């Protein structure tokens, strides 16, 4: 229960044009991008539709594993969980914080884990399999997949791609970006991103420092746009 008075006070404060500033890294160099409140709202609507397809609804416990700097990509999914009627917990991306993700997963009966990375999978060690055994859907960074598989777990993909986020649909054949916002192409093995939505940060056929392949044939899930298959060593 947030105090009504504080909510009203915050409503009286002029809202900034921007929701925030995100920072990606391309070839080791910072690549900043602006996110408007409208961008965030559309990203959240897309996240909500994705989570709906994965069965997130009233009472679903979701564990989201991401660092604060990853919030431009992950915050829409946090809000989307709430809009779907579920609840979320937050895990960190460091191995020394893996215990917290394991604790949430086992104690809360988490049904969906979103964003597990190699450091956390590694940090859980022998507890990885038992901790996530009851999880219905795991979205993992690509480089965490071998560890999850070794623990007898299957995983879908979530991975940052420039300012966009690639997320698997339930079909699990590659990962989608929000086609209303982004267009992705391959330049050899290098992926390039173009904004097609009215985003605050515009980019045209820009290399995002990610290797992978692009499939343009329609996905069985019916979502529009290309899918990406990311290099298995991608860790974010």
């Amino acid at each position, binding site marked *: 229960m*947030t105090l009504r008075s504080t*909510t009203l006070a915050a409503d009286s404060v002029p809202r900034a044009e921007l929701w925030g500033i995100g920072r990606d890294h391309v070839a080791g160099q910072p690549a900043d991008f602006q996110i408007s409140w409208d961008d965030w709202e559309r990203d959240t609507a897309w996240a909500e539709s994705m989570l709906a397809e994965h069965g997130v609804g009233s009472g679903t*416990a979701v564990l989201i594993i991401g660092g604060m700097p990853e919030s431009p990509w992950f915050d829409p999914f946090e809000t989307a969980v709430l809009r779907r009627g579920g609840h979320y917990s937050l895990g960190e991306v460091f191995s020394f914080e893996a215990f917290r993700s394991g604790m949430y997963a086992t104690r*809360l009966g988490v049904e969906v884990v979103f964003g597990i990375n190699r450091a956390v999978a590694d940090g859980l060690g022998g507890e990885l399999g038992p901790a996530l055994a009851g999880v219905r859907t795991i979205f993992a960074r690509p480089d965490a997949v071998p560890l999850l598989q070794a623990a007898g777990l299957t995983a879908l993909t979530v991975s940052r791609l420039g300012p966009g986020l690639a997320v698997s649909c339930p079909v699990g054949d590659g990962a989608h970006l929000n086609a209303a916002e982004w267009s992705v192409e391959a330049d050899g093995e290098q992926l390039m991103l173009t904004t097609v939505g009215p985003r605050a940060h515009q980019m045209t056929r820009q290399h995002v420092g990610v290797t992978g392949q692009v499939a343009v044939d329609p996905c069985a899930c019916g979502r529009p746009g290309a899918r990406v298959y990311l290099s298995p060593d991608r860790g974010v």
Partner: protein
Amino acid sequence: MPDPKYLEPEIETMSRSDLERLQEERLLELLPTVYERSGLMKKTWDEAGVKPADIRNLDDFHERAPLVCKDDVRQFRDTYGDPFGGLLAVDRSRVSTVFSTSGTTGDATLYAHTWDRWHPFWATLARNLWDIGVRPGDYVLGSGFKTRGQLYHADQMCGAIPLMVDTGIGAWSEAVKAILKYRPVYATLTGLALPELDHLSRTIDLVDVFSSFVGVSFAGEPLSARMRRRLVDWGTETFVWTSAGDVTAAFECREHDGCHAWEDTVLLESVDAEGREAVGNGEIGELVATSLDNLATPLIRFRSDDLIRLTREQCACGRTHARFWPVGRKGDETIVQGLSLVPMDIWSALEEVPETEAAVFQLVRPAREMDELRVRVGYDDTTPTARLDDVRDRVAAAIEARTGVVPEVELFPEPELLSRARGGKLSRVVKA
């Protein structure tokens, strides 16, 4: 647009009598519901022979309501297999977020909230950021603290724009470049960030770096005298904040005369060692907190183990809400060879040795009373290996001078020891 000084002037400066009336209303409304739904409260109150109907006002509550501690929560959790330790007082379908305590002092415990637009913790934080001077359109460096959710939402409540830049271990060199690019006005610092900033100050002009700031906040552990001086040297105004009994946060205002807890969200008490009597104004007591705005996992008379000095005297800032000064943790006192010491003794000793002045350390304490004093100490990792024996000797001598005990000192490069941090802070007292 709110008042220039207060985000909610009518709440922040309301008279003590109105504030206590508001607390009483909220408490009396809360107790019957929580008693009915919270397994831990029902068990505790039934064992004490107290019913919500017995509580007609705040005086009854202080006199009759039983206290609980974190071990009670853990015991309930383990006995009944209830992840919330008997605290959950709403249906799971109404829960929005489940976060946990940092876990630095033992086994982390869960707490849930139900909310719609803003988490209650962010909302109370927004009052403090407004006081510090965060305003619409300002940039704010995003905080790495996540045990209470993403704190940048409080920045957004003030109309500011968070910079989602890494401020974790080893990331401050790049964060400084982001500061120079965007010129933010505020950042939350932790004990993990300060040693790194201290090292960077040898090659970077941190006075220039922080010149755009209206303030920085510091939380997670006590701020040492040396680091407070360093922050002053860098031209920052530092606002210390701390937890108010796992219920909410308490923040220094511009007067820097104690940390204000927002008493429309928490009922604060400071009690004696037995938990029977309230201690006098400004005397050292244990902080006991009761949630007034958490319907999901409300804590009712929760013993925090935190030792504080509490006052309800009006602050010079105009706010009427109680202030307290953290003194330490109840269980931190350690007896070695019959001599008493607390972590601050080690802290002060390490600040005297240049190679360990960042005071990154862990006191290894398998039991409260010990025959040997064992301390892990982080040293500046630019120190030549050939000098480490000398560093160890000087550290041991400084600790002995402070405590009277010859310690066993294990040296680690600072980054290696900092990597043992959990939830944004390094445990200063560890069992092994």
